[in-house]
């Protein structure tokens, strides 16, 4: 009898732990999902006003400017339909180039400027970050639709 009680206790404790763990994991999971938006979506106001998200597209040619302190940089990201201004403090990754794909993670500032705390450029020179490619494609499709209407 005693052994059975013990086993029951063990199973109950295990189940309770499992439930707690699942709740904690899903909670942490939800709060750490980072969503992606194209510049067009950001312009439409679909992006969160507070909190982090990702944007992607091409670095507009001729838009890269270095501020006098040598560490802050400004550039514009475009999905060919809409464009947005980005500021970033720090060293840009090796593959960051004007006219190439880029993905940035950060927040929307009060003045509509995207304040990036991370600029991602993937490992391969020819490789367009998938999010950036998706942004360009979406913009193209919208344009096509616009013409029909």
């Amino acid at each position, binding site marked *: 009898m005693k052994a059975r009680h013990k086993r029951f206790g063990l199973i109950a404790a295990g189940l309770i732990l499992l439930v707690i763990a699942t709740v904690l*994991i899903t909670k942490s*999971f939800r709060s750490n999902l980072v969503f992606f938006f194209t510049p067009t979506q950001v312009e439409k106001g679909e992006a969160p006003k507070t909190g982090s998200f*990702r944007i992607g597209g091409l670095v507009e040619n001729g838009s890269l400017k270095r501020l006098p*302190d*040598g560490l802050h940089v400004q550039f514009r990201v475009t999905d060919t339909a809409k464009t947005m201004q980005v500021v970033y403090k720090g060293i840009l990754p090796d593959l960051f180039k004007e006219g190439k794909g880029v993905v940035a993670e950060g927040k929307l500032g009060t003045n509509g400027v995207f304040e990036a705390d991370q600029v991602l450029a993937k490992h391969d*020179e020819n490789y367009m970050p998938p999010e950036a490619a998706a942004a360009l494609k979406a913009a193209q499709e919208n344009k096509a639709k616009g013409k029909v209407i």
Partner: protein
Amino acid sequence: MIPELGHYSLILAFFFAIVQGTLPLIGVWRNNKRLANLAVPAARTQFLFIAIAFLSLEYAFYTDDFSVLYVASTSNSHLPLMYKLAALWGGHEGSMLLWVSILGLWTMAVTLFAKALPDSFRIRLIAVMGMVSMGFLAFIIFTSSPFERLIPAALDGRDLNPLLQDPGMVFHPPVLYMGYVGFSVAFAFAIAALLDGKLDITWARWTRPWTTVAWVFLTLGIAFGSKWAYYELGWGGWWFWDAVENASFMPWLVGTALIHSLAVTEKRDAFKVWTVLLSICAFSLSLLGTFLVRSGVLTSVHAFATDPRRGVFILLYLVVVIGGALLLFALRAPKVGLGEKFDVVSRESMLLANNVVLAAAAGSVLLGTMYPLLMDALGAGKISVGPPYFDAVFVAIMAPGLFLMGLGPLAKWKKASLPEIGTRLRVAAVISVVSAVLVPFVMGKITLMLVVGVFMGIWVTSTTLILLRNRIVARQDTTPNLVDNLKGIPLAFYGMLLAHLGIGVFVLGVTLVKGYESEQDLRMDKNDVAKIGNLDFKFDGVAKIQGPNYESAQGTFTVTSNGKEMAVLHPEKRFYPVQGSVMTEADIKPGLVKDLYISLGEPLEEGAWSVRIYIKPFVQWIWAGAILMALGGFCALADKRYRIRNKKTDQDLKAGEPQEAHEAYSA
């Protein structure tokens, strides 16, 4: 000509894999000795042809044969020889060939060293490995042959990605694959046991060394990769929770659980079904990892759409292997039986908890890795799961596991007493609590994470040392001489101590570097001095350097502390003209208590540069911990009860096992 020879050999190897994977099974089933005995020669011939294919491709790389599409896309005539040869696994097709070659190597090893197994079991084992190989070879031949010709031939190759031009590229992938693929042996053992319907202590004893070898390789492979990312990517990070890294980490977690569960199966004839399930899971995750990393699915889920054959094949293969194994498991597991019973407080129950913790950790990593892919595939938008998720969940799950690591090895099999364990661990508890408060206090910054981390690191380390002390004391009456006493303790026990110490060292490294690292982005003119703590970093300027296939701007930094020179560092910014790409090469002064890490950003006006300086305290402990774990694995392998024996002595062994060896894992 040679590439065609390679391709042809690969096709022959495929046929031999079919023979190896089917006929011997029929032979064992129908009691047909002639068919059954095909297993070994078929396996060896298959390996021979795979080896020929592998060498043919290496030859194409060696001779810069740019009429081979794969060579033209991953190599270049100016590439140093070492990287030309390593470029074989620089892309999808070659990686698959490396994978199947290593599988051949493992199968070969099984035919050579697993002689003590009963014939029918050994034949089933080899046949299962043949089936795995069959699928992989078909995948290579039908969808991703590295021998495809490029007509007309390219004048020169597109070059290996500069990021991969590093000694890490030579070692990391083969070692990692040795680990991944090594779990196929444990998998084959499990499947063969299910087919056999028999799973006992001897089965566990046969399986253990193979699993341990695979685990050692995987541990080293992951550690190599992490170290490589640390110095090569130039961001000073050592783990990014990137999908590629997670792909290798999940089999490691499950493999670690498997090693512990196998110990229980061998010692106590318990956890049998669970052990089999873990063997299947470890290899399934290895397969998943291989495909995740190498199929292009990470770049885009729609990579499948551009080459649907590959995607469909991969999915089909995963379904057949994993689904088939699980189906067999469902049908046959009841026959294997659960095994011996044990008390709620016992070493078995603690190891069970360890297994649950490791499996939960693997599950949460799997969720974070696959969820974005799944959402994207369902068209639900692009999502990424941030590293904070992994950090938080992982720490929360592993902390109780680490705590149990201190108790488990001290608990008795079958039934243990908590108060007794508590008494033995008083000292360790005191040491851990004191250092958890003292260390952050001395370092000048206290956070909850630091306190918990230091506590866990010291707890694991000190309880492990107490384990050794207890062992020595227990033997003191019979062997008073300390040297004899130490010599008499089985190697497997030392192996466990080393591996657990490795975990302790690793936890301390991670905690301290996360808590106390510093990072500074600076704009530096020539002769500028940056002061960080008591260190002065002087920028002596940049010089132009010509490498074998790149041009480089090399900076010079002199680091002094109170006027005393500590290090001179030369970080570089390299330009690789073939791919037109720029690479940051950081320079690091490694140390026991801290690393000094400098990377060059971009050139600014008038010889000034943007510069990033990191100080990384105790970061080397992370890899030192991993190396200790691997050493522990080696040590356990060298234990005399796993030595290769011929059949006769193996029988003797079963009759009268030396008591000492049996006690290896007991306190």
